Protein backbone atom coordinates (compact mmCIF):
# COMPACT_ATOMS: atom_id res chain seq x y z
CA UNK A 1 0.00 0.00 0.00
CA UNK A 2 2.85 2.36 0.89
CA UNK A 3 4.50 1.50 -2.43
CA UNK A 4 1.28 2.32 -4.25
CA UNK A 5 1.07 5.69 -2.51
CA UNK A 6 4.69 6.45 -3.34
CA UNK A 7 4.35 5.38 -6.96
CA UNK A 8 1.27 7.54 -7.44
CA UNK A 9 3.28 10.66 -6.60
CA UNK A 10 5.51 10.33 -9.67
CA UNK A 11 2.90 10.99 -12.40
CA UNK A 12 1.22 13.58 -10.17
CA UNK A 13 4.42 15.58 -9.62
CA UNK A 14 5.40 15.28 -13.28
CA UNK A 15 1.98 16.52 -14.32
CA UNK A 16 2.13 19.48 -11.90
CA UNK A 17 5.64 20.53 -12.95
CA UNK A 18 4.85 20.36 -16.67
CA UNK A 19 1.63 22.28 -16.10
CA UNK A 20 3.54 24.94 -14.13
CA UNK A 21 5.99 25.23 -17.05
CA UNK A 22 3.23 25.64 -19.65
CA UNK A 23 1.17 28.15 -17.65
CA UNK A 24 4.19 30.29 -16.73
CA UNK A 25 4.99 30.65 -20.43
CA UNK A 26 1.41 30.99 -21.68
CA UNK A 27 -0.03 33.29 -18.97
CA UNK A 28 2.20 36.25 -18.25
CA UNK A 29 1.77 37.77 -14.81
CA UNK A 30 0.25 41.27 -14.62
CA UNK A 31 2.51 43.77 -12.83
CA UNK A 32 -0.07 44.72 -10.22
CA UNK A 33 -0.40 41.15 -8.87
CA UNK A 34 3.32 40.51 -8.41
CA UNK A 35 3.85 42.59 -5.28
CA UNK A 36 7.12 44.07 -4.07
CA UNK A 37 10.51 42.91 -2.85
CA UNK A 38 13.33 40.81 -4.23
CA UNK A 39 11.17 37.90 -5.38
CA UNK A 40 8.82 40.31 -7.15
CA UNK A 41 11.75 41.91 -8.97
CA UNK A 42 12.78 38.44 -10.14
CA UNK A 43 9.24 37.67 -11.31
CA UNK A 44 9.02 40.92 -13.23
CA UNK A 45 12.06 39.90 -15.29
CA UNK A 46 10.47 37.80 -18.03
CA UNK A 47 13.62 35.84 -19.07
CA UNK A 48 14.01 34.71 -15.45
CA UNK A 49 10.39 33.47 -15.37
CA UNK A 50 10.93 31.60 -18.65
CA UNK A 51 14.11 30.03 -17.24
CA UNK A 52 12.24 28.82 -14.14
CA UNK A 53 9.48 27.43 -16.36
CA UNK A 54 12.00 25.52 -18.48
CA UNK A 55 13.68 24.09 -15.37
CA UNK A 56 10.31 22.97 -13.96
CA UNK A 57 9.27 21.41 -17.26
CA UNK A 58 12.61 19.60 -17.56
CA UNK A 59 12.34 18.16 -14.06
CA UNK A 60 8.75 17.08 -14.78
CA UNK A 61 9.91 15.30 -17.93
CA UNK A 62 12.83 13.73 -16.03
CA UNK A 63 10.42 12.32 -13.42
CA UNK A 64 8.61 10.54 -16.24
CA UNK A 65 11.71 9.30 -18.07
CA UNK A 66 14.39 8.52 -15.50
CA UNK A 67 14.86 7.24 -11.96
CA UNK A 68 18.14 9.13 -11.55
CA UNK A 69 18.49 10.47 -7.98
CA UNK A 70 19.41 13.94 -9.31
CA UNK A 71 15.93 14.35 -10.80
CA UNK A 72 14.28 13.37 -7.51
CA UNK A 73 16.55 15.68 -5.53
CA UNK A 74 15.84 18.53 -7.93
CA UNK A 75 12.11 17.94 -7.42
CA UNK A 76 12.53 18.26 -3.65
CA UNK A 77 14.54 21.47 -4.09
CA UNK A 78 11.94 22.98 -6.43
CA UNK A 79 9.05 22.32 -4.06
CA UNK A 80 11.05 23.38 -1.01
CA UNK A 81 11.79 26.73 -2.69
CA UNK A 82 8.16 27.03 -3.84
CA UNK A 83 6.86 26.38 -0.32
CA UNK A 84 9.25 28.94 1.14
CA UNK A 85 8.26 31.58 -1.41
CA UNK A 86 4.55 30.97 -0.86
CA UNK A 87 5.04 31.15 2.92
CA UNK A 88 6.94 34.42 2.54
CA UNK A 89 4.20 35.91 0.31
CA UNK A 90 1.50 34.75 2.71
CA UNK A 91 3.17 36.55 5.61
CA UNK A 92 4.49 39.70 3.92
CA UNK A 93 2.40 40.49 0.80
CA UNK A 94 -1.31 41.03 1.31
CA UNK A 95 -2.22 41.51 -2.35
CA UNK A 96 0.33 39.57 -4.37
CA UNK A 97 -0.37 36.29 -6.14
CA UNK A 98 2.20 33.47 -5.97
CA UNK A 99 2.77 33.13 -9.72
CA UNK A 100 3.07 29.34 -9.23
CA UNK A 101 1.08 28.83 -12.42
CA UNK A 102 2.03 32.09 -14.12
CA UNK A 103 -0.66 34.72 -14.60
CA UNK A 104 -3.34 32.29 -13.42
CA UNK A 105 -1.94 32.51 -9.87
CA UNK A 106 -2.93 36.15 -9.50
CA UNK A 107 -5.11 35.95 -6.40
CA UNK A 108 -3.68 36.80 -2.96
CA UNK A 109 -1.97 33.84 -1.29
CA UNK A 110 -4.31 32.09 1.13
CA UNK A 111 -3.76 29.16 3.47
CA UNK A 112 -4.90 26.64 0.85
CA UNK A 113 -2.13 27.73 -1.54
CA UNK A 114 0.42 27.25 1.23
CA UNK A 115 -1.06 23.86 2.10
CA UNK A 116 -0.88 22.81 -1.56
CA UNK A 117 2.80 23.72 -1.81
CA UNK A 118 3.55 21.83 1.41
CA UNK A 119 1.71 18.70 0.17
CA UNK A 120 3.72 18.82 -3.06
CA UNK A 121 6.89 19.00 -0.98
CA UNK A 122 5.81 15.89 0.96
CA UNK A 123 5.06 14.11 -2.33
CA UNK A 124 8.52 15.06 -3.64
CA UNK A 125 10.16 13.64 -0.52
CA UNK A 126 8.12 10.44 -0.94
CA UNK A 127 9.60 9.65 -4.38
CA UNK A 128 13.25 10.06 -3.37
CA UNK A 129 14.99 6.72 -3.93
CA UNK A 130 12.14 5.05 -5.80
CA UNK A 131 13.48 2.79 -8.56
CA UNK A 132 10.56 3.23 -11.01
CA UNK A 133 10.09 6.07 -13.51
CA UNK A 134 6.85 7.92 -13.97
CA UNK A 135 6.27 6.20 -17.31
CA UNK A 136 6.81 2.81 -15.66
CA UNK A 137 4.03 3.62 -13.19
CA UNK A 138 1.67 4.79 -15.94
CA UNK A 139 2.43 1.73 -18.14
CA UNK A 140 1.79 -0.63 -15.20
CA UNK A 141 -1.71 0.86 -15.10
CA UNK A 142 -2.54 -0.24 -11.57
CA UNK A 143 -6.11 0.58 -10.56
CA UNK A 144 -5.02 1.53 -7.06
CA UNK A 145 -2.43 3.96 -8.40
CA UNK A 146 -5.07 5.46 -10.69
CA UNK A 147 -7.46 5.87 -7.77
CA UNK A 148 -4.80 7.55 -5.62
CA UNK A 149 -3.76 9.91 -8.44
CA UNK A 150 -7.42 10.79 -9.13
CA UNK A 151 -8.03 11.50 -5.44
CA UNK A 152 -4.92 13.64 -5.19
CA UNK A 153 -5.84 15.56 -8.33
CA UNK A 154 -9.24 16.29 -6.80
CA UNK A 155 -7.56 17.57 -3.62
CA UNK A 156 -5.12 19.69 -5.66
CA UNK A 157 -8.03 21.12 -7.66
CA UNK A 158 -9.83 22.03 -4.46
CA UNK A 159 -6.72 23.81 -3.20
CA UNK A 160 -6.09 25.66 -6.49
CA UNK A 161 -7.59 29.13 -7.01
CA UNK A 162 -6.14 29.03 -10.53
CA UNK A 163 -9.05 26.93 -11.81
CA UNK A 164 -11.53 29.64 -10.88
CA UNK A 165 -9.31 32.27 -12.49
CA UNK A 166 -9.09 30.23 -15.69
CA UNK A 167 -12.86 29.73 -15.84
CA UNK A 168 -13.43 33.43 -15.16
CA UNK A 169 -11.03 34.31 -17.98
CA UNK A 170 -12.98 32.15 -20.37
CA UNK A 171 -16.23 33.78 -19.28
CA UNK A 172 -14.94 37.34 -19.29
CA UNK A 173 -13.55 38.73 -22.47
CA UNK A 174 -12.00 42.14 -22.06
CA UNK A 175 -14.33 44.69 -23.68
CA UNK A 176 -12.87 46.16 -26.86
CA UNK A 177 -12.50 49.67 -25.41
CA UNK A 178 -10.34 48.29 -22.57
CA UNK A 179 -8.31 45.76 -24.57
CA UNK A 180 -4.60 46.40 -24.82
CA UNK A 181 -3.99 46.05 -28.54
CA UNK A 182 -0.45 46.12 -29.92
CA UNK A 183 0.03 48.23 -33.02
CA UNK A 184 1.30 45.15 -34.89
CA UNK A 185 -2.14 43.53 -34.45
CA UNK A 186 -3.84 46.61 -35.90
CA UNK A 187 -1.51 46.64 -38.92
CA UNK A 188 -2.10 42.91 -39.51
CA UNK A 189 -5.89 43.39 -39.52
CA UNK A 190 -5.65 46.49 -41.71
CA UNK A 191 -3.37 44.95 -44.34
CA UNK A 192 -5.50 41.83 -44.61
CA UNK A 193 -8.65 43.91 -45.19
CA UNK A 194 -10.50 44.60 -48.42
CA UNK A 195 -10.46 48.31 -47.61
CA UNK A 196 -6.66 48.34 -47.57
CA UNK A 197 -6.37 46.43 -50.85
CA UNK A 198 -8.83 48.77 -52.55
CA UNK A 199 -7.03 51.94 -51.42
CA UNK A 200 -3.39 50.82 -51.27
CA UNK A 201 -2.75 52.25 -54.74
CA UNK A 202 -3.70 55.74 -53.58
CA UNK A 203 -1.43 55.76 -50.53
CA UNK A 204 1.75 57.82 -50.88
CA UNK A 205 3.79 56.70 -47.85
CA UNK A 206 4.61 53.36 -46.27
CA UNK A 207 3.89 54.55 -42.74
CA UNK A 208 0.85 56.45 -41.45
CA UNK A 209 1.37 60.11 -40.60
CA UNK A 210 -0.81 59.84 -37.50
CA UNK A 211 -2.06 56.96 -35.37
CA UNK A 212 -4.33 57.23 -32.36
CA UNK A 213 -7.05 55.34 -30.56
CA UNK A 214 -10.46 56.16 -29.17
CA UNK A 215 -12.60 53.52 -27.46
CA UNK A 216 -12.94 50.52 -29.80
CA UNK A 217 -11.24 52.13 -32.80
CA UNK A 218 -7.65 52.75 -33.76
CA UNK A 219 -7.25 55.38 -36.46
CA UNK A 220 -4.45 55.47 -39.04
CA UNK A 221 -4.02 58.40 -41.44
CA UNK A 222 -2.08 58.10 -44.71
CA UNK A 223 -1.42 60.87 -47.24
CA UNK A 224 -2.55 59.99 -50.75
CA UNK A 225 -3.82 61.18 -54.16
CA UNK A 226 -7.36 60.90 -55.50
CA UNK A 227 -8.66 62.50 -58.69
CA UNK A 228 -5.37 64.43 -58.98
CA UNK A 229 -5.86 66.00 -55.59
CA UNK A 230 -4.04 65.50 -52.30
CA UNK A 231 -6.19 63.64 -49.85
CA UNK A 232 -5.93 62.02 -46.44
CA UNK A 233 -6.95 58.36 -46.28
CA UNK A 234 -8.25 57.52 -42.82
CA UNK A 235 -8.60 53.91 -41.74
CA UNK A 236 -10.45 52.95 -38.57
CA UNK A 237 -9.56 49.45 -37.34
CA UNK A 238 -11.69 48.07 -34.53
CA UNK A 239 -10.05 46.63 -31.43
CA UNK A 240 -12.57 43.80 -31.09
CA UNK A 241 -10.94 40.49 -30.24
CA UNK A 242 -13.24 38.62 -32.59
CA UNK A 243 -14.21 39.68 -36.10
CA UNK A 244 -12.54 43.10 -36.09
CA UNK A 245 -13.86 45.47 -38.75
CA UNK A 246 -12.16 48.11 -40.86
CA UNK A 247 -13.62 51.39 -42.12
CA UNK A 248 -12.11 53.89 -44.49
CA UNK A 249 -12.78 57.50 -45.45
CA UNK A 250 -11.04 59.79 -47.92
CA UNK A 251 -10.80 63.35 -46.68
CA UNK A 252 -9.52 66.51 -48.34
CA UNK A 253 -6.77 68.12 -46.25
CA UNK A 254 -8.31 70.99 -44.34
CA UNK A 255 -7.91 74.52 -45.59
CA UNK A 256 -9.61 75.68 -42.44
CA UNK A 257 -11.37 73.86 -39.63
CA UNK A 258 -14.84 73.82 -41.15
CA UNK A 259 -15.75 70.37 -39.97
CA UNK A 260 -15.64 67.00 -41.67
CA UNK A 261 -15.54 66.98 -45.44
CA UNK A 262 -15.24 63.41 -46.68
CA UNK A 263 -15.26 62.81 -50.42
CA UNK A 264 -16.77 59.48 -49.61
CA UNK A 265 -16.78 57.04 -46.76
CA UNK A 266 -17.19 53.32 -46.67
CA UNK A 267 -18.10 51.32 -43.67
CA UNK A 268 -18.22 47.57 -43.29
Amino acid at each position, binding site marked *: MVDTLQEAQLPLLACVLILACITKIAFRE*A*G*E*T*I*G*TGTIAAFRRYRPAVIAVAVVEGSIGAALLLTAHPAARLATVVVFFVATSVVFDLRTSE*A*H*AGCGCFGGLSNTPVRFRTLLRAFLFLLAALAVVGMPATGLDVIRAGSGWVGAVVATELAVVAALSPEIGVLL*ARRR*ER*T*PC*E*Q*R*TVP*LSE*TFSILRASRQWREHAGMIATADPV*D*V*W*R*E*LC*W*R*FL*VYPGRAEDKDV*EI*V*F*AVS*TEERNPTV*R*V*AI*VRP*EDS*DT*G*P*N*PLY*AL*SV
Partner: protein
Amino acid sequence: MPQSRIDASSRRRLRQAVVPDPDRPEPNPAPAAAVSGLILDASPHLIVLATPAGTEARLPMSDATSIWYAGKADLSALQPGRRAIIRPSADGLAAERVWVDIVRAAGTIVVRDGATLDVDEGPHRGVTHVAIPPRTLSQILVRHPHFEPGYLVDVIGVRSADGLLAVRPGTRSQPDYPADSVPRQRPVEPAPPVLAGAATWFGAQGGEVAYPALDQSGGGCGDVPAGYANLPYLSVGSELYIRNECTGRAARMPITQCGCVAGRFRDRCVVCEASPRGRIVELSPAEFVDLGGDLDEGCFNVTVRVG
Protein backbone atom coordinates in the same frame (compact mmCIF):
# COMPACT_ATOMS: atom_id res chain seq x y z
CA MET B 1 4.60 66.85 -20.26
CA PRO B 2 1.90 68.35 -22.47
CA GLN B 3 1.89 66.81 -25.91
CA SER B 4 0.93 69.95 -27.78
CA ARG B 5 2.43 68.78 -31.10
CA ILE B 6 -0.69 66.64 -31.57
CA ASP B 7 -3.39 68.47 -33.50
CA ALA B 8 -6.57 67.64 -31.61
CA SER B 9 -8.88 69.44 -34.04
CA SER B 10 -7.40 67.56 -37.01
CA ARG B 11 -7.90 64.23 -35.26
CA ARG B 12 -11.49 65.14 -34.44
CA ARG B 13 -12.17 66.09 -38.07
CA LEU B 14 -10.65 62.87 -39.43
CA ARG B 15 -12.36 60.65 -36.85
CA GLN B 16 -15.71 62.23 -37.63
CA ALA B 17 -15.20 61.37 -41.29
CA VAL B 18 -14.78 57.67 -40.66
CA VAL B 19 -16.65 57.06 -37.36
CA PRO B 20 -19.17 59.87 -36.83
CA ASP B 21 -20.32 60.68 -33.30
CA PRO B 22 -23.92 59.57 -32.73
CA ASP B 23 -24.76 62.64 -30.64
CA ARG B 24 -22.84 65.21 -28.69
CA PRO B 25 -24.29 66.86 -25.59
CA GLU B 26 -23.79 70.60 -25.60
CA PRO B 27 -22.35 72.21 -22.47
CA ASN B 28 -24.49 74.72 -20.64
CA PRO B 29 -23.50 78.36 -21.13
CA ALA B 30 -19.82 78.91 -20.48
CA PRO B 31 -19.17 79.67 -16.82
CA ALA B 32 -17.25 82.77 -15.86
CA ALA B 33 -13.60 82.03 -16.68
CA ALA B 34 -11.12 81.80 -13.83
CA VAL B 35 -8.29 84.31 -13.79
CA SER B 36 -4.84 83.36 -12.61
CA GLY B 37 -1.54 85.15 -12.32
CA LEU B 38 0.96 86.91 -10.13
CA ILE B 39 -0.45 89.40 -7.64
CA LEU B 40 0.71 92.93 -8.50
CA ASP B 41 -1.45 94.86 -6.10
CA ALA B 42 -4.42 94.28 -3.81
CA SER B 43 -6.70 96.48 -1.79
CA PRO B 44 -10.08 95.88 -0.09
CA HIS B 45 -11.73 96.95 -3.35
CA LEU B 46 -9.47 95.71 -6.14
CA ILE B 47 -6.96 92.97 -6.98
CA VAL B 48 -4.55 93.30 -9.89
CA LEU B 49 -2.87 90.27 -11.43
CA ALA B 50 -0.18 89.84 -14.09
CA THR B 51 -1.53 86.99 -16.21
CA PRO B 52 0.64 84.42 -18.03
CA ALA B 53 -0.47 86.05 -21.31
CA GLY B 54 1.38 89.22 -20.27
CA THR B 55 -1.70 91.30 -19.58
CA GLU B 56 -3.02 92.86 -16.40
CA ALA B 57 -6.29 91.59 -14.95
CA ARG B 58 -8.20 93.83 -12.53
CA LEU B 59 -11.07 92.39 -10.53
CA PRO B 60 -13.14 94.25 -7.96
CA MET B 61 -13.17 92.78 -4.45
CA SER B 62 -16.06 92.90 -2.01
CA ASP B 63 -16.88 91.84 1.51
CA ALA B 64 -18.24 88.61 0.05
CA THR B 65 -14.89 87.71 -1.54
CA SER B 66 -13.48 84.61 0.12
CA ILE B 67 -9.68 84.29 0.33
CA TRP B 68 -7.73 81.04 0.90
CA TYR B 69 -4.13 80.96 1.96
CA ALA B 70 -3.35 77.81 3.96
CA GLY B 71 -6.96 78.04 5.13
CA LYS B 72 -9.44 80.90 5.32
CA ALA B 73 -7.43 84.11 5.18
CA ASP B 74 -7.83 87.85 5.09
CA LEU B 75 -6.59 90.57 2.76
CA SER B 76 -3.07 90.37 4.22
CA ALA B 77 -2.62 87.09 2.27
CA LEU B 78 -2.79 89.00 -1.02
CA GLN B 79 0.86 90.02 -1.05
CA PRO B 80 2.48 91.11 -4.31
CA GLY B 81 4.58 88.31 -5.82
CA ARG B 82 2.28 85.52 -4.73
CA ARG B 83 0.28 83.56 -7.28
CA ALA B 84 -3.50 83.72 -7.20
CA ILE B 85 -6.35 81.95 -8.92
CA ILE B 86 -9.61 83.84 -8.87
CA ARG B 87 -13.11 82.61 -9.54
CA PRO B 88 -15.23 85.56 -10.67
CA SER B 89 -18.79 85.88 -9.42
CA ALA B 90 -21.61 84.55 -11.60
CA ASP B 91 -22.01 87.95 -13.26
CA GLY B 92 -18.26 88.11 -13.87
CA LEU B 93 -17.99 91.54 -12.26
CA ALA B 94 -16.16 90.73 -9.03
CA ALA B 95 -13.87 88.18 -7.41
CA GLU B 96 -15.90 85.50 -5.63
CA ARG B 97 -13.06 83.27 -4.36
CA VAL B 98 -9.30 83.76 -4.37
CA TRP B 99 -6.79 80.97 -3.78
CA VAL B 100 -3.29 82.22 -3.01
CA ASP B 101 -0.15 80.15 -3.72
CA ILE B 102 -2.13 76.91 -3.57
CA VAL B 103 -0.21 73.84 -4.77
CA ARG B 104 -0.68 70.10 -4.61
CA ALA B 105 1.44 66.96 -4.64
CA ALA B 106 -0.17 63.63 -5.52
CA GLY B 107 1.99 60.62 -6.20
CA THR B 108 4.22 57.99 -4.68
CA ILE B 109 6.31 58.64 -1.58
CA VAL B 110 9.90 57.95 -2.61
CA VAL B 111 11.66 59.35 0.47
CA ARG B 112 10.36 60.09 3.94
CA ASP B 113 12.53 61.88 6.44
CA GLY B 114 10.43 62.69 9.49
CA ALA B 115 7.84 65.22 8.36
CA THR B 116 9.33 65.83 4.93
CA LEU B 117 8.62 63.80 1.83
CA ASP B 118 9.79 63.49 -1.74
CA VAL B 119 6.74 62.65 -3.85
CA ASP B 120 7.11 61.17 -7.33
CA GLU B 121 4.24 62.60 -9.37
CA GLY B 122 4.89 60.36 -12.35
CA PRO B 123 7.43 60.12 -15.16
CA HIS B 124 6.05 63.21 -16.87
CA ARG B 125 5.79 65.45 -13.78
CA GLY B 126 8.84 64.69 -11.65
CA VAL B 127 9.48 64.75 -7.91
CA THR B 128 8.06 67.34 -5.49
CA HIS B 129 9.54 68.10 -2.08
CA VAL B 130 6.88 68.33 0.63
CA ALA B 131 7.30 69.69 4.15
CA ILE B 132 4.57 69.05 6.70
CA PRO B 133 4.38 71.45 9.65
CA PRO B 134 3.63 69.89 13.06
CA ARG B 135 0.19 71.50 13.28
CA THR B 136 -1.07 69.63 10.18
CA LEU B 137 0.93 66.41 10.50
CA SER B 138 -1.67 64.56 12.55
CA GLN B 139 -4.49 65.58 10.19
CA ILE B 140 -2.51 64.23 7.22
CA LEU B 141 -1.45 61.05 9.04
CA VAL B 142 -5.08 60.23 9.83
CA ARG B 143 -5.81 60.14 6.10
CA HIS B 144 -2.51 58.40 5.26
CA PRO B 145 -2.04 55.33 7.50
CA HIS B 146 0.72 54.03 5.18
CA PHE B 147 2.98 57.06 5.42
CA GLU B 148 6.04 55.36 3.98
CA PRO B 149 7.94 55.00 0.71
CA GLY B 150 6.10 53.04 -1.96
CA TYR B 151 2.62 54.21 -0.98
CA LEU B 152 0.49 56.94 -2.51
CA VAL B 153 0.07 60.34 -0.92
CA ASP B 154 -1.99 63.39 -1.82
CA VAL B 155 -1.56 66.69 -0.01
CA ILE B 156 -2.65 70.26 -0.67
CA GLY B 157 -0.58 73.15 0.58
CA VAL B 158 1.01 76.47 -0.16
CA ARG B 159 4.09 77.29 -2.17
CA SER B 160 7.19 77.99 -0.08
CA ALA B 161 10.90 78.43 -0.61
CA ASP B 162 11.44 74.81 0.49
CA GLY B 163 8.79 73.32 -1.78
CA LEU B 164 5.23 72.50 -0.88
CA LEU B 165 4.17 73.31 2.68
CA ALA B 166 1.32 70.86 3.30
CA VAL B 167 -1.77 72.17 5.06
CA ARG B 168 -4.33 69.43 4.46
CA PRO B 169 -4.75 65.99 2.87
CA GLY B 170 -5.96 65.91 -0.72
CA THR B 171 -7.67 62.55 -0.26
CA ARG B 172 -10.18 61.26 2.25
CA SER B 173 -8.58 57.83 2.31
CA GLN B 174 -5.13 56.85 1.15
CA PRO B 175 -5.13 53.63 -0.94
CA ASP B 176 -4.04 50.71 1.24
CA TYR B 177 -1.89 49.12 -1.49
CA PRO B 178 1.57 50.08 -2.77
CA ALA B 179 1.54 52.41 -5.77
CA ASP B 180 2.94 49.70 -8.06
CA SER B 181 0.38 47.07 -6.98
CA VAL B 182 -2.87 48.74 -7.96
CA PRO B 183 -5.77 46.26 -7.91
CA ARG B 184 -8.05 46.23 -10.94
CA GLN B 185 -11.81 46.36 -10.75
CA ARG B 186 -13.29 42.89 -11.28
CA PRO B 187 -15.09 41.71 -13.23
CA VAL B 188 -14.07 43.71 -16.28
CA GLU B 189 -17.32 44.98 -17.75
CA PRO B 190 -17.89 47.17 -20.79
CA ALA B 191 -17.29 50.81 -19.92
CA PRO B 192 -20.58 52.69 -19.55
CA PRO B 193 -21.20 55.55 -22.03
CA VAL B 194 -20.91 57.99 -19.14
CA LEU B 195 -17.96 57.46 -16.79
CA ALA B 196 -18.45 58.48 -13.18
CA GLY B 197 -15.86 59.09 -10.48
CA ALA B 198 -13.73 61.91 -9.12
CA ALA B 199 -12.08 64.85 -10.86
CA THR B 200 -8.99 66.34 -9.24
CA TRP B 201 -6.59 69.14 -10.12
CA PHE B 202 -2.84 69.25 -10.54
CA GLY B 203 -0.16 71.89 -10.85
CA ALA B 204 -0.18 73.01 -14.46
CA GLN B 205 -0.70 76.04 -16.62
CA GLY B 206 -4.20 76.49 -17.99
CA GLY B 207 -5.88 74.29 -20.54
CA GLU B 208 -4.53 70.95 -19.34
CA VAL B 209 -6.69 67.83 -19.06
CA ALA B 210 -5.05 64.59 -17.97
CA TYR B 211 -6.66 61.16 -18.41
CA PRO B 212 -5.31 57.93 -16.88
CA ALA B 213 -5.87 55.44 -19.73
CA LEU B 214 -4.09 56.70 -22.83
CA ASP B 215 -3.23 54.32 -25.64
CA GLN B 216 0.47 54.25 -26.36
CA SER B 217 -0.05 54.55 -30.12
CA GLY B 218 -1.59 58.03 -29.83
CA GLY B 219 0.82 59.78 -27.48
CA GLY B 220 0.06 57.68 -24.47
CA CYS B 221 1.15 57.08 -20.93
CA GLY B 222 4.18 54.96 -21.75
CA ASP B 223 5.13 51.92 -19.75
CA VAL B 224 3.29 52.68 -16.51
CA PRO B 225 1.07 50.39 -14.40
CA ALA B 226 -2.61 50.30 -15.25
CA GLY B 227 -4.97 52.34 -13.10
CA TYR B 228 -7.71 51.15 -10.77
CA ALA B 229 -10.80 52.12 -12.73
CA ASN B 230 -11.51 50.14 -15.88
CA LEU B 231 -11.42 53.13 -18.17
CA PRO B 232 -11.64 52.95 -21.97
CA TYR B 233 -8.50 53.70 -23.92
CA LEU B 234 -8.32 57.17 -25.46
CA SER B 235 -5.59 59.37 -26.92
CA VAL B 236 -4.21 62.86 -26.58
CA GLY B 237 -6.69 65.02 -28.49
CA SER B 238 -9.75 62.91 -27.65
CA GLU B 239 -12.55 65.19 -26.53
CA LEU B 240 -14.22 64.77 -23.16
CA TYR B 241 -17.52 66.26 -22.07
CA ILE B 242 -16.79 66.86 -18.39
CA ARG B 243 -19.63 67.68 -15.98
CA ASN B 244 -19.29 68.66 -12.34
CA GLU B 245 -22.13 66.70 -10.75
CA CYS B 246 -22.07 68.97 -7.69
CA THR B 247 -22.57 72.26 -9.56
CA GLY B 248 -23.96 71.13 -12.91
CA ARG B 249 -21.29 73.07 -14.79
CA ALA B 250 -19.91 71.31 -17.85
CA ALA B 251 -17.37 71.85 -20.60
CA ARG B 252 -15.96 69.98 -23.57
CA MET B 253 -12.16 69.75 -23.50
CA PRO B 254 -9.54 67.70 -25.32
CA ILE B 255 -7.16 65.44 -23.40
CA THR B 256 -3.69 66.99 -23.34
CA GLN B 257 -1.62 64.60 -21.24
CA CYS B 258 -1.40 61.37 -19.28
CA GLY B 259 -2.82 61.17 -15.78
CA CYS B 260 -1.24 57.86 -14.87
CA VAL B 261 -0.72 58.68 -11.18
CA ALA B 262 -4.33 59.76 -10.70
CA GLY B 263 -5.39 56.40 -12.12
CA ARG B 264 -3.74 54.62 -9.18
CA PHE B 265 -6.00 56.24 -6.58
CA ARG B 266 -9.09 54.26 -5.54
CA ASP B 267 -10.59 56.97 -3.38
CA ARG B 268 -13.99 58.62 -3.56
CA CYS B 269 -14.88 62.28 -3.72
CA VAL B 270 -17.57 63.36 -1.26
CA VAL B 271 -17.94 67.03 -2.08
CA CYS B 272 -21.64 66.49 -2.71
CA GLU B 273 -22.55 62.78 -2.62
CA ALA B 274 -20.03 59.93 -2.51
CA SER B 275 -18.67 59.42 -6.02
CA PRO B 276 -17.84 55.98 -7.42
CA ARG B 277 -14.28 54.92 -6.60
CA GLY B 278 -11.46 56.08 -8.83
CA ARG B 279 -10.10 59.30 -10.30
CA ILE B 280 -11.02 59.56 -13.94
CA VAL B 281 -9.81 63.01 -14.95
CA GLU B 282 -7.33 65.63 -13.74
CA LEU B 283 -7.66 69.30 -14.64
CA SER B 284 -5.36 72.27 -14.45
CA PRO B 285 -6.44 74.67 -11.67
CA ALA B 286 -8.17 77.20 -13.95
CA GLU B 287 -10.32 74.51 -15.63
CA PHE B 288 -11.09 72.95 -12.25
CA VAL B 289 -12.28 76.31 -10.91
CA ASP B 290 -14.24 77.06 -14.11
CA LEU B 291 -16.27 73.91 -13.57
CA GLY B 292 -17.14 75.01 -10.05
CA GLY B 293 -14.49 73.05 -8.15
CA ASP B 294 -12.92 74.46 -4.99
CA LEU B 295 -9.15 73.97 -5.14
CA ASP B 296 -8.85 73.51 -1.38
CA GLU B 297 -11.43 70.69 -1.48
CA GLY B 298 -9.22 68.89 -3.99
CA CYS B 299 -11.90 67.12 -6.03
CA PHE B 300 -15.46 67.16 -7.29
CA ASN B 301 -17.86 64.41 -8.32
CA VAL B 302 -17.67 64.16 -12.08
CA THR B 303 -19.23 62.43 -15.04
CA VAL B 304 -17.31 62.18 -18.28
CA ARG B 305 -18.61 61.36 -21.73
CA VAL B 306 -16.24 60.70 -24.60
CA GLY B 307 -16.80 62.84 -27.70
